């Protein structure tokens, strides 16, 4: 399952793979379509070829080829039906005597001559003539009544395509008997054998069919021919010179059969007999004007390649450009077909690649639409994963930093020891070396961790960028979504939020539980209401419950209701929120603030959609759509244990992260406009205008409390302002919110940048990254570390040794809690390890002074308190240990 999911993820993220799959699918579909409508597709496939064949300059006729045809005069002399074979015998003998190199005859030896046509005697004469003039190529017949050793049988078959056009002849015809070569090919081979004494193996090489390069319009008239009557006269009158002139050194083909229209339709529109088609094959071979075409495998491969290329172009590029590139690819292929035909006489497939390309064109568009949501989800998952990895790396970094700091301190102590005791110098220098190397290692590891973190953040950044790309929307759609949002009181023109709304709209129709994440004031309730209004339950009840506001004692009663007399004060039956929201939607706000025991109760409702009223003996079942929201990191809650994992998975049916206002500053002006109008109207004041400076200040301000804070700020400004213009000053933004990171110098943060509060602020701002904070403050890193260490000790003292409480106090923002907790624990354990060997507090403090000499004095007081506290507890522990 995991593999399948990984494969699917890999597939969705690789345009090559997707293009390959699309290409393959389109190729198969194209083949299917061909099978369904073979005539149409065949005709389409050959369109270019047929056009070229009809409109090109005619190919030459071989001077070695002579056709002797039956004519009117000969029919008058020998009859209009079949002729006596004795006539054919004499023609053959004369041609042979006149020096014909190879003789072919369109005559079948499949029947004995009837008595009226000379009977057995004429048959014997023909066979004798063939023996003496042979080898003679004759037409293949089903039954071979007569046979001769000097006879080569050639088939007169023609291959017709599905559109009933004859474009090729089979090289060999196979049946029960050994394979029979084509008439034209057999003649060519016999001729080649006579002229070059080498046996060409055309008929042995190939088992397929040979495209016919027709001369002129493809009829027999395209060849210069001698009528049989003229030949006969020359024989009768012993005109040997004429006969020699006609026949000497040539391939002579006799066509003694009655002239018929023929049954094979050519690409030129003419109808010919099989023998004529084979004459064109013979001429094609003699003049070496062969045509080639690809085999079935190559055609499929070409189709696949073309389809793949088009699919790849469509997936790789966007909108119009992709269409333009795909169209170009198809056009280039079309040009290749024509070019290969003209220059190399190679026929490339047309119908299949074209169909596959068109299928890909449609298919890829549909595919993109179908998978865009999936891709987005996968990208979000990737982001979450990377965030987690980044957090883990950050933790490692914290530990490394701390370790490095500790080692530096140890080194300093060692150095001091060296200065004091020269006698122990060597030993100490060795230990200093060890420590130095450890320090170097730790620093290297830290650097690596930092690099890794940077890489991960870069990936995260690119993923964020990519996440927004695939679902790019047109202006029209954006406007439409904006309008819909406006109707739901969601005021935004941010594309990201609109996309989120679009996905939410899709998801609203399902029954899935929706989890909305986002900082306070990002509009979680608005979106929860939107889910309800966009769902099929829109006409039913929407109940919003703030979980943080419910008294823990009344939790069950409030949510599930109670029965009369179930507890003191329960004077009547009461329905809980779940029951009230039956068939509708219940919005569980601040779900992250729910106590663990309450979480398990809620879990049961989410699982089974049934619960017990307080005091009830039978369960109540409800049909409720659940939308939950929180500003806390539930995933971290799961890892830290304050949030149930199973509840977390129950809630994460559809997860939407609402961006804070600072991430969509584009909405600030529009929100400002609307809020100013609303507030002024409510207050009964004329609507003031915002100065450009004020607006810029609003945009630049980091709205920690998001829209809620933003509105309050405007309310305050309008209430206190009398003029028609709201200026920057009237907004009173200066001290309330620190400017965003990176844009202000450290000196701008606070009047006293060296104060603990300022340092802490800066640390929080940079996520307790020592390096970043140090560079922001322009300090040495160890100074920042010492300051944090002091702050941590101070917080520990203030919280009476409760590390969690102390960490929360330092972290400020819960998102940094884990980092601070780790650092604090490390500092504390280091302190304890330093004072551990000493029995009295004074000795320990002396050592601490030496060790923590860089710690500001005001913080050393905290160290002292901690040491004394530790030593005070120690004897008791020791005593307990001895007693046990």
């Amino acid at each position: 399952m995991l593999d399948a999911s990984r494969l699917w993820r890999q597939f969705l993220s690789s345009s090559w793979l997707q293009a390959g799959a699309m290409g393959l699918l389109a190729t198969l579909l194209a083949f299917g379509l061909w099978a369904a409508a073979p005539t149409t597709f065949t005709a389409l496939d050959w369109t270019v070829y047929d056009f070229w064949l009809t409109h090109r300059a005619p190919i030459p006729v071989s001077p070695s080829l002579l056709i002797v045809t039956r004519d009117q005069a000969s029919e008058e002399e020998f009859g209009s039906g079949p002729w006596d074979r004795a006539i054919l015998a004499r023609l053959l003998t004369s041609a042979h005597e006149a020096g014909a190199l190879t003789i072919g005859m369109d005559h079948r030896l499949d029947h004995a001559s009837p008595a009226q046509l000379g009977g057995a005697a004429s048959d014997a004469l023909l066979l004798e003539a063939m023996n003496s003039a042979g080898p003679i190529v004759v037409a293949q017949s089903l039954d071979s009544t007569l046979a001769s050793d000097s006879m080569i049988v050639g088939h007169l078959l023609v291959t017709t395509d599905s559109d009933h056009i004859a474009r090729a002849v089979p090289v060999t015809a196979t049946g029960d008997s050994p394979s029979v070569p084509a008439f034209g090919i057999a003649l060519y081979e016999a001729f080649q054998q006579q002229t070059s004494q080498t046996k060409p193996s055309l008929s042995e090489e190939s088992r397929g069919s040979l495209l016919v390069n027709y001369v002129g319009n493809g009829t027999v008239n395209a060849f210069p021919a001698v009528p049989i009557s003229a030949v006969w006269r020359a024989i009768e009158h012993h005109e040997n010179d004429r006969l020699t002139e006609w026949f000497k050194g040539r391939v002579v083909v006799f066509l003694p059969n009655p002239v018929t229209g023929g049954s094979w339709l050519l690409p030129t529109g003419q109808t010919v007999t099989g023998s004529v088609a084979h004459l064109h094959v013979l001429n094609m071979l003699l003049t070496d004007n062969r045509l080639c075409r690809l085999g079935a495998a190559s055609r499929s491969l070409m189709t696949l390649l073309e389809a793949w290329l088009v699919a790849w172009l469509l997936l790789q590029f966007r909108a119009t450009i992709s269409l333009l590139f795909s169209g170009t690819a198809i056009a280039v292929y079309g040009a290749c077909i024509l070019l290969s035909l003209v220059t190399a006489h190679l026929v490339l497939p047309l119908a299949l690649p074209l169909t596959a390309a068109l299928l890909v064109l449609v298919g890829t568009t549909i595919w993109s639409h179908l998978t865009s949501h999936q891709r987005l989800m996968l990208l979000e998952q990737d982001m979450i994963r990377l965030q987690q990895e980044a957090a883990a790396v950050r933790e490692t970094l914290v530990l490394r930093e701390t370790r490095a700091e500790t080692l530096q301190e140890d080194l300093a102590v060692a150095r001091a020891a060296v200065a004091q005791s020269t006698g122990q110098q060597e030993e100490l220098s060795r230990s200093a070396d060890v420590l130095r190397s450890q320090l170097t290692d730790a620093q290297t590891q830290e650097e690596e961790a930092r690099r890794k973190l940077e890489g991960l953040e870069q990936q995260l950044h690119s993923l964020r960028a990519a996440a927004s790309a695939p679902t790019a929307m047109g202006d029209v759609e954006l406007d439409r979504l904006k309008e819909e949002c406006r109707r739901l009181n969601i005021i935004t023109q941010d594309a990201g939020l609109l996309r989120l709304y679009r996905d939410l709209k899709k998801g609203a129709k399902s029954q899935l539980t929706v989890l909305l994440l986002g900082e306070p004031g990002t509009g979680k309730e608005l979106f929860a209401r939107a889910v309800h209004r966009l769902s099929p339950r829109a006409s039913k009840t929407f109940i919003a419950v703030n979980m943080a506001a419910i008294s823990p004692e009344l939790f069950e009663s409030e949510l599930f209701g109670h029965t009369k007399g179930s507890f003191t004060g329960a004077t009547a039956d009461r329905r809980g929120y779940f029951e009230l929201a039956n068939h509708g939607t219940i919005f569980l706000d601040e779900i992250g603030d729910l106590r663990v025991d309450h979480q398990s109760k809620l879990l049961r409702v989410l699982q089974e959609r049934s619960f017990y009223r307080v005091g009830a003996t039978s369960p109540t079942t409800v049909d409720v759509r659940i939308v939950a929201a929180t500003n806390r990191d539930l995933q971290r809650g799961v890892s830290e244990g304050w949030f149930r994992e199973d509840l977390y998975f129950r809630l994460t049916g559809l997860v939407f992260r609402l961006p804070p206002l600072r991430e969509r500053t584009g909405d600030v002006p529009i929100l400002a406009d609307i809020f100013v109008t609303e507030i002024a109207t409510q207050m009964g004041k004329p609507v003031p205008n915002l100065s450009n400076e004020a607006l810029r200040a609003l945009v630049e301000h980091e709205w920690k409390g998001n829209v809620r804070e933003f509105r309050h700020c405007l309310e305050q400004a309008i209430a206190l302002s009398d003029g028609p213009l709201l200026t920057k000053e009237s907004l009173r933004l200066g001290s309330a919110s620190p400017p965003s990171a990176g844009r202000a110098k450290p000196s701008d943060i606070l009047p006293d940048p060296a104060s603990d509060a300022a340092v802490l602020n800066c640390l929080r701002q940079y996520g307790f990254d020592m390096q970043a904070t140090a560079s922001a403050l322009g300090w040495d890193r160890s100074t920042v570390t010492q300051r944090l260490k002091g702050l941590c000790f101070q917080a520990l003292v203030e919280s009476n040794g409760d590390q969690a409480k102390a960490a929360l106090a330092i972290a400020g923002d819960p998102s940094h809690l884990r980092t601070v907790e780790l650092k604090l624990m490390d500092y504390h354990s280091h302190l304890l390890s330093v004072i551990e060997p000493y029995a009295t507090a004074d000795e320990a403090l002396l050592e601490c002074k030496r060790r923590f000499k860089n710690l500001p004095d005001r913080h050393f007081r905290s160290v002292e308190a901690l040491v004394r506290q530790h030593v005070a507890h120690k004897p008791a522990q020791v005593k307990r240990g001895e007693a046990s």
Partner: protein
Amino acid sequence: MRRRLVLVTLLFASFVARPSVPSSFSQTPENAPSPTAETQPTSSETSPAPMSTDEHKLPELLPQEREDAVLVLGELRSAVRLSPDSAKDRLKLAQGLYRIGDLDAALDECRAGLKLEPNNAKAHLQLGITLMAKQDGRAAATALKEAILLDPEMTHAHYSLGSVQYSLGNLTAAIQSYRRALELQPNFPDARYRLALVLKLTNRHQEAARLMEEAAIGGIPQAQYFMGNAYRNGQGVEKNLALAIRWWTTAVEFGQQRGAESLSQLRRQALSPDQPERRRKEAIDAFRQYRDGLWAEYPDAVRNDPNESLGIALLKDSQASDGVTLLFAEAYALGETAHDELARLYESGLDTRLAQFDKRILRCFETTAADGFIPSKKALARIYGKGLGVAPDLQKAKAMLKGLSKQEMKTVLDDIAGR
């Protein structure tokens, strides 16, 4: 036996009584050709091939014969009218109708006769033969098989069935039928010839050659021609061009013009300068051997000189008839002495055997001259130049001398001018 002979004679007479058609491969044994060269057809050896080779084509009766046949037919019709229930009369009428070519009427009479006498084998045979003429092979085969069933020893039914089977493409069945006919009547050259042909077509050349030779000896000109071919090609026999010439000459004597064509072809091979020397020598030797072989048939004739003509020797020996025949044979076989003698006899004549300016001699010269025989050309130039038996035509005479050396031309032209 006597009954069989009578029947065969009757049937042969009834269905193939045709006059001699030159160069035909007709299967009529009785159609004996003229035995001598004097009776050679005047159409020369270049007669066209598309001659009537119709084996079962109805005889074209001469006017006199037609008249006789019509008279006979009238009598037969009267006989049928008088006794309509006589199958015998109806059969005779059918034969008469067949002879004049009224096949439909002949069929009707045959069928009427068979209704009267269903077991009449002759009637079935006649029906089969008539159906063969109507080109209805399958029906003919059925009728002939019926005739054989009724009378298994009916030779001609077997023979005709052989022909029908062949035309239907059943070569094996045809061979069986011919063999059966020969078993019943060993002295049946035509059946032998037919059998030889079919065997030849099935590539059984040796047996075919043996049977063909027997048929040729039996006087079948087609068989003689094919024997000549067999000896030329070495098919079934050892190659022997001299024997080939002999058989072709015999075939020509029996009226088979293809023999003349083959001879002409061989003469050209011997005389044409275009031919390879080996082939020329082969042909020249063959003609010489043939001429020498003629002497062996006349052991009494005395030969003093290898170039001496047997014809002249026989003429001197007062065997004028054979002498003239042999002179022609030798002249056609490029015998110069015999040729010169014929040239002399053309101008002088020989009592009753050869008239002065005999056309047969002129035709012989023309034939051999066309094949490139120089003495013939010279003789013809002299004949046309001097107008011996023909209108004088100097142009033609000069044309005859084309290709000769200047000296030879001058001699001949002087001879013509010296008249």
